């Protein structure tokens, strides 16, 4: 995989790569994708799903409830007045 593509993919994935990492992943992903060319010759089929078993009609009724105390979830986060603090948006 060329360095430009690796850089573009890394930006999409929110990962900053060092020069060494760019070099390494470019080489590794190239090798891996060459191996994946095996998929081009694999037979396909018309019916295929998201899961290996059929999962249908398993939705439960939508009933509001509180499974976990919100304060428990907040205890390890940086908060201000029970709001979760995050980085600046702009």
């Amino acid at each position, binding site marked *: 995989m060329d360095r430009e593509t690796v850089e573009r993919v890394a930006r999409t994935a*929110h990962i900053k790569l060092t020069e060494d990492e760019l070099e390494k992943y470019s080489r590794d992903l190239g090798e891996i994708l060459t191996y994946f060319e095996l998929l081009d010759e694999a037979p396909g089929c018309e019916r295929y799903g*998201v899961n*290996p078993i059929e999962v249908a009609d398993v939705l439960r009724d939508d009933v509001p409830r509180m499974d976990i105390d919100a304060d*428990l979830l907040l205890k390890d986060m940086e908060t201000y007045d029970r709001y979760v603090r995050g980085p600046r*948006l702009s």
Partner: protein
Amino acid sequence: MSMKRIMESLGTVNSKYQMFHAMTEDTDPGDAKFLFSAKDNLTSKDMETCAGSRILEGYFPAFDATAIARMREAGGKLIGKTNMDEFGFGTFSTNSGLEIPRNPYDLERACGGSSGGSACAAAVFEDHVSLGVSTGGSICCPASFCGVYGIAPTYGRVSRYGLIDYGNSLDKIGVMSSKAGDLRKYMGMIAGRDEKDPTSCVQPEMRNDHRKIGSIAVPREGTEGLSKDVAKAFADALDELRRMGIDVEEVDMPSLKYAMPAYYVLATSEASTNLARYVGMRYGRPQGDLSLKFDDYFSSIRSEYFGDEAKRRILLGTFTRMVGYRDRYYSKARKVRQVVIDDYKRVLEDHDAVLAPTMPFTAPRFDEISGMSALDSYKADYLTVPANIAGTPHMNVPCGYDGNGMPIGMQFVADHWNEDLLFTMAEEWEKDFEMRRPEVVA
């Protein structure tokens, strides 16, 4: 060894084998009926849960995973969370930001991955059961390297609630133990419907008919590329199975060679979306500079705390889902998965199980692993990946030892929801198999 004795020796034993990332501080089992450990990608209320990643350090979940909750309800005491490859990304449990477990038969060798700490604990402690998780072979591989029984059930058999996802369409929670009978016993505890995971709600009841396997198919594709010791042990095991009255037939399963690339496309595609949630805000200790712009904040945390293999798989999975590449990789991989499922169904019409060695070689030394490329290690999974991609239940059974005394395992695969056949097979095999437990010196 009594439960109390095991609990008193946890610290000493762990300093030698490094099977646990977190351990209980209790030294008394109280009224516990049994002790168990769980892979560190299953959330636990009373222990830090990191899934082998530095990005989750300091994460103390507010809830138990369903599998852990059910073990506790049955009287189990959780004694430790086991070390693993970061988020399950590996074959040897060496891709970890935390501790790397050591093989109980030779401390210079790996336990296998990614449930390496679980396999280690199951091998080292007497009467111990450990919960593992398999995405592409992460129960059977370490069970094979550490010489224990291990089962990954049908996809959907055990609720994934509380499991830190790797690949949602592939992840399965299962059981590892040095005793064959434990597979049936503890799978019975953790299996079953759970409204918190819809994929668990389609399952039929798990049967306990003690049905025996009468015929086995051995795919030619599963006996290629084996080390000499593994090939010999497997041939001897086939002779033993015939002696037990089981028909053994060689078959062709041409789809198996496509399972490995299809698996890595599906698994990394799903992983790259799952790992988008780790940005230094919601899980683990916030470690970043909140004055940064959000893009820079997220990127700096992810770049610093994800390990090498996690980054590689995020990049690979992001790429294979991108516009322009999606049809060639992600969509094709989904079709190949169906082709593999169809191949299993075809063979399992005439046979009760498919059998091959679990791994093509025995546990490698750490210095051998460090010389392997990423692709080399992916290729090592070619025997365990097909059953995982198909969601069919599969089980490692110890079947011999190599010239260095390292364990060798074989993997039985049954049709969806037919775990009963596998349990019975393990129980029957155990009667005559001479298991060599590792010498444990605390």
